[in-house]
Structure formats: structure tokens, C-alpha cells
């Protein structure tokens, strides 16, 4: 199947809309044969009647896309009723041959943020369930599910991106097509290819980029994506569709890492000391090489909590690395953290593996930020270890977390994720939102830890920590319940 994917046409006055780009993209569409033409939203600039009329005339002149979804701009000024009048139902399904296409309205009227409401979410879920045996499953929406690089602060994200991402991965959706940020991007997460289109004809591009579109070819064994810029350059990505399910030859074990987060030590009942002590006892009997605590050591950054934390953590046998969460460095915590637990950015090396922590937290703020200078220095420093297994750890998540409202917790997560993928960092450990989660994006395994011992967990499995076994050929992530010690495999992946 061949798909021609355009987005963010922003049909309007010439101050925004570049008709030459629009015509050129259509010319290229008409010069080849495609099975589907997809427009992933922001058809118009302001949701105005004149803009919808103009877009309709342009589509009449050429050919209407097979699937269109509304973007945030299309829902401005009551634009949704016009979308329904000129285009049709913003949500729905299309089924042909062995293919399922689900289109989703992810916009919120007069807001740039996106949200997939409960009714629409259930529509997506019910259709993915009903047609789960289709060979090719495609989801189309405007807002991005995964942070996009080169687009400044990570904002206007889908607020329940984590839930939708979980749904997409759970139902083995093959392809997700999106737009919104006017910057083309492609990632593969687990067995799903996430494709963002740039803007096909808006004059607002980023970094002096030109307008672009994507072509996607889906075959039995692979999905190929071409980002085609209108200056006649292109970027090519190819991903295999076949997923490995059974693992048996792991090779020698190189290291076992314990990952934990949100121990939440305090004098209050929110800290569950029994869970902490039971976890400690199990970890000391686990033959681990290292413990990485991904933030949330204490409930608040006050001396009494830090005194308790130091005492409790001194009883762990393996060496410990820490990175702070915002709560660790509020009040006097900014001074107490380095005094009690060492540098904000900690580092460790063992048996060909390099671990580097980066502090993503800011005091008195839940929002994380790395910053351009720090990020640049971080990845330059990783270049010295190209032949080694590399692990980055920080508190804030770089991939949306299920069951947590996604507000762009790490403001520059788009750029950080891009650098992580570009530099083939082998493993990234995060510890926010108290939800255990592990996935592979391109060549990088990303693992988020649940809360070790706080009452604030989002998992039915209870409080837990993760064991990460690094073998010669594989990485295995297992979640261990803090209290009972029962285990759940979160994922197994081949090392690249």
C-alpha cells in the first residue's frame, strides 16, 4: 500500500498559505499512483467559512483526501461545525481489504492543546478491538503522541497522550499519522511507526525549513517512510514489521541494575516504610551491580526527611546513584541534596557500561527542563563512549506516561528524545508519574519506574521497582512488587 501524507495546509490568505507549495505537492501526488491520500489536520488557518470554501475548491480542483481530521486551527472560531459541513464527521473508521483506518478529532475548540475525550477514546478502543485481526491498522490524528524535536518548548501536546500511546501499542497498531508541529519526524516505538508530517503549505516553517509531505509504503515485511521536502530533498526511513516474541539465547550477563523512584521518605503516612524496608531486603539479596534512584527521594526537601533518607539508603548493599525530582530540591533541598547524596549530575562506569545522570528538575516546579547548553554537553560527553553500552538517567519522562495528564513535563523532551535516538543511547531511565513503563524507541530502551514506597502509585500491581538485566544480546526489564516480591516482565529487547 502506498500512502501520500500531507498535513497543516493552513488554507487562508497569502500571508499564511503558500499556494505554490500546495500545488507542487499535489502535482507530485498526481504524478504517481497512491492507494490513500491522508490529510492529518489544520486544513485551514482559522476555521473560517471562507477558508473551508477555498480548501474545498482546491480539493475539488485536484482530488479530495481519502481521510481528513480536524486540527486545532480548524476548530477555532466554532470551526468544527464548518468542518462537519464541508468535510464530514471528524471521527470514524474506514475499512477496506485487510486495512483498518481510525480517524480521530484530537482538537479542543480555541485551544492549541489536544485531547481525545472519553467517547472518542472508547470509539478508538472499540474499533481497534473489533478489527484487531486486520493486517494493517492505521490511526490518524492531528496532535503528536510522541515529543517532536526542533519545535521549541514541548507544549500543545495531547493531554492524554500516554493513554492513547498505551492503546496504540497494546492493540499493535502499525502506523500512526500526525501533524501539528510543522516539523516532519519518524520514530518506531515497539512495533508501531509514528509519522509526523511537516506543513505542506503554511509559510510558518521551523529553522528555515521548506514545506514537505511524506510518502509511506507498507509491505508485508516492512514500512518505508520518505520525508519529501519541496526543495527536492528527501529523508528515508525503513522499519521491519516483524516483531520477535520468543527469546532464548541471551548470552553472558553484563550487569543487573535496580531502578527505583519516588521512595518519598518523610515522617508522614504517605511514606510506606514497610514497602521500603521489604524492597531493600529483596534488593540486597538480588546480586545487583548498581541502584539508580530516578528522583523523589523525599516527600519534601527538608532536613528531617533527608536525615531519614540518608539513614535508610545507607543500608543498601549495591552502590547508589541519584538524580533529583523537583520535590527533592524544594525548600532547603537544593542545598541538602548535594550535601547528603552528592552531585546533581552523577556518573558511574562498570564493565563496559557508562551511566550518566542529568538533573531535569527545577525547584518549586513540577516541570522539567534540561536546557540547550546542558543537552549539548551531555551528548558530546557520550561521544567518548561510542563503543560502550550507554545509559542516561533523569527524573522526568521523555515519553508520555499512561494514566497521567501529559503537560509536557519535560519542556524540551522533543529535543532530548531526538538526541537520545540520534546518539543511539542504549538505555534511558526515568522516574516520574509513578507508573511503570518500558518500551523501545528506534534503538533505545526507555524505562520509567513506579513509586517504590509512596502511597501515590498509579499501578494496580502496587508499589514496585524495576530490575534491568543487561545481557550480551538482550535487555530484560522486570517489575518487582516492593512488598511481595512477585515479578512481571515489562519487556525483552535485542541489543542493537
Amino acid at each position, binding site marked *: 500500500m502506498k500512502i501520500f501524507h500531507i498535513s497543516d495546509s493552513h488554507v487562508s490568505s497569502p500571508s499564511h498559505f503558500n499556494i505554490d507549495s500546495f500545488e507542487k505537492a499535489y502535482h507530485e501526488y498526481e504524478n504517481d499512483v497512491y492507494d490513500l491520500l491522508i490529510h492529518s489536520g489544520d486544513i485551514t488557518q482559522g476555521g473560517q467559512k471562507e477558508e473551508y470554501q477555498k480548501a474545498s475548491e482546491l480539493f475539488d480542483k485536484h482530488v479530495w483526501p481519502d481521510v481528513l481530521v480536524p486540527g486545532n486551527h480548524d476548530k477555532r472560531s466554532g470551526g468544527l461545525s464548518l468542518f462537519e459541513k464541508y468535510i464530514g464527521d471528524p471521527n470514524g473508521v474506514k475499512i477496506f481489504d485487510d486495512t483498518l483506518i481510525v480517524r480521530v478529532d484530537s482538537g479542543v475548540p480555541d485551544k492549541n492543546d489536544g485531547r481525545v475525550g472519553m467517547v472518542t477514546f472508547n470509539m478508538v478502543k472499540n474499533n481497534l478491538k473489533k478489527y*484487531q485481526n486486520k493486517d494493517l491498522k492505521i490511526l490518524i490524528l492531528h496532535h503528536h503522541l510522541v515529543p517532536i524535536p526542533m519545535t521549541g518548548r514541548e507544549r500543545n501536546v495531547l493531554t492524554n497522550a500516554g493513554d492513547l500511546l498505551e492503546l496504540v501499542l497494546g492493540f499493535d497498531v502499525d502506523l500512526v499519522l500526525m501533524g501539528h508541529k510543522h516539523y516532519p519526524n519518524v520514530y518506531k516505538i515497539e512495533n508501531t511507526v509514528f509519522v509526523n508530517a511537516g506543513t505542506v503549505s503554511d509559510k510558518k516553517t521551523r529553522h528555515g525549513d521548506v514545506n514537505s509531505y511524506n510518502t509511506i509504503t507498507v509491505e508485508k515485511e516492512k514500512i518505508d517512510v520518505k520525508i519529501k521536502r519541496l526543495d527536492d530533498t528527501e529523508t528515508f526511513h525503513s522499519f521491519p514489521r516483524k516483531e520477535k*516474541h520468543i527469546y532464548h539465547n541471551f548470552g553472558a550477563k553484563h550487569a543487573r541494575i535496580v531502578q527505583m523512584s519516588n521512595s518519598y521518605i518523610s515522617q508522614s503516612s504517605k511514606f510506606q516504610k514497610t514497602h521500603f524496608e521489604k524492597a531493600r531486603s529483596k534488593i540486597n539479596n538480588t546480586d545487583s551491580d548498581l541502584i539508580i534512584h530516578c528522583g523523589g527521594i523525599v516527600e519534601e526537601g527538608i532536613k528531617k526527611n533527608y536525615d531519614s533518607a540518608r539513614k535508610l539508603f545507607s543500608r543498601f548493599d549495591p552502590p547508589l546513584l541519584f538524580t533529583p525530582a523537583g520535590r527533592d530540591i524544594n525548600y532547603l533541598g537544593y542545598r541538602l541534596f548535594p550535601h547528603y547524596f552528592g552531585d546533581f549530575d552523577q556518573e558511574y562506569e562498570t564493565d563496559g557500561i557508562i551511566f550518566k545522570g542529568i538533573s531535569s528538575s527545577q525547584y518549586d516546579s513540577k516541570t522539567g527542563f534540561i536546557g540547550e547548553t546542558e543537552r549539548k554537553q551531555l551528548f558530546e560527553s557520550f561521544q567518548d563512549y561510542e563503543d560502550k553500552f550507554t545509559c542516561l538517567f533523569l527524573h522526568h519522562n521523555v515519553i508520555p506516561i499512561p494514566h497521567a495528564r501529559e503537560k509536557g513535563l519535560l519542556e524540551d523532551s522533543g529535543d532530548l528524545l531526538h538526541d537520545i535516538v540520534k546518539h543511539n543511547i542504549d538505555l534511558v531511565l526515568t522516574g516520574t508519574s509513578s507508573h511503570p513503563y518500558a518500551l523501545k524507541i528506534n534503538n533505545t530502551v526507555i524505562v520509567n519506574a513506579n513509586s517504590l514506597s509512596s502511597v501515590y502509585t498509579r499501578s*494496580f500491581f*502496587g508499589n514496585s521497582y524495576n530490575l534491568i538485566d543487561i545481557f550480551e544480546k538482550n535487555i530484560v526489564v522486570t517489575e518487582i512488587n516492593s*512488598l511481595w516480591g512477585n515479578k512481571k*516482565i515489562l519487556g*525483552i529487547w535485542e541489543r542493537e
Partner: protein
Amino acid sequence: MTQNLPDFLQGEFPLREFVTKKLIGIQSSSTVQEAAQKMTDFNISSLVALKNDEVVGFMTESDLKKKVVALGKSSDTPVSEIMNDKLIKININLTIKEAMQEMVDNDIKHLLVEENDEIIGILTFTDFLTIEQQKLETFIARE
């Protein structure tokens, strides 16, 4: 039976969304000692047995107990001698309820999950038991 499941698993909850689509295997020519070591390393209660990358059998902790230790067999016994070569499978497009029914009908606690004739995951009885253990934890750890 499904009445005891938490609300979110009631009714027609799809198996695909619930099951981990990764599982651990061992060569059928390996010894039961190696199999026991693998189960211990990963703290799992079953393994699929492979021959030339094809699944040819399935073994559980219970097989080790009944077919090796209780009979006084050597730890060098090959997995192929004790594995179950009749594979009980369920299609991933079915529901949790149907999977549980399959387990009850066959009197088993492990069920292989398949898609397009390929085994892609495993469902174990303990998966259901651990789902809502947080309620119990909250009771125990009231401090």
C-alpha cells in the same frame, strides 16, 4: 469465575491489550537443570521449548517437580523428555473471559497465546491474582 475479576477486566476485555507479547524459551535439547536455572534467573514459572527456532513443547515448574524430582531423575535429563508437546493455545483476538474459560476447561494455569499460527505470548493464572494486590497492600502497610 469472572465475577471476581476487577471491573476493568470484566466483560469482553481483549486479551491483546492485557498479555505481554514476549516470552522466554529454551532449546528442547537443554537439560532440566538449565531450564530450572533459567526459570530462577527470570523468576518465571514456565518456558517454551524450541527446536530450530520452532516451538515444539512447553514446560512448567510443576513438570520439574512431578517428572524429574519426584521420580528421582537426573538433572541432566533433556527438556524434550519432560516437556508437554501438546500445546494448548488461544488466539490473541479473543477475550480474557474466553482465556480463563480455556484454562478452566483444560485444568491448566498457563495458556499460550498465538497469532497467525505463531506463539507470541503467555497468560498465567497468577497474572490475574496480582492485578489488584494494591488493595491488600494498602491494608497491610497501614502505618
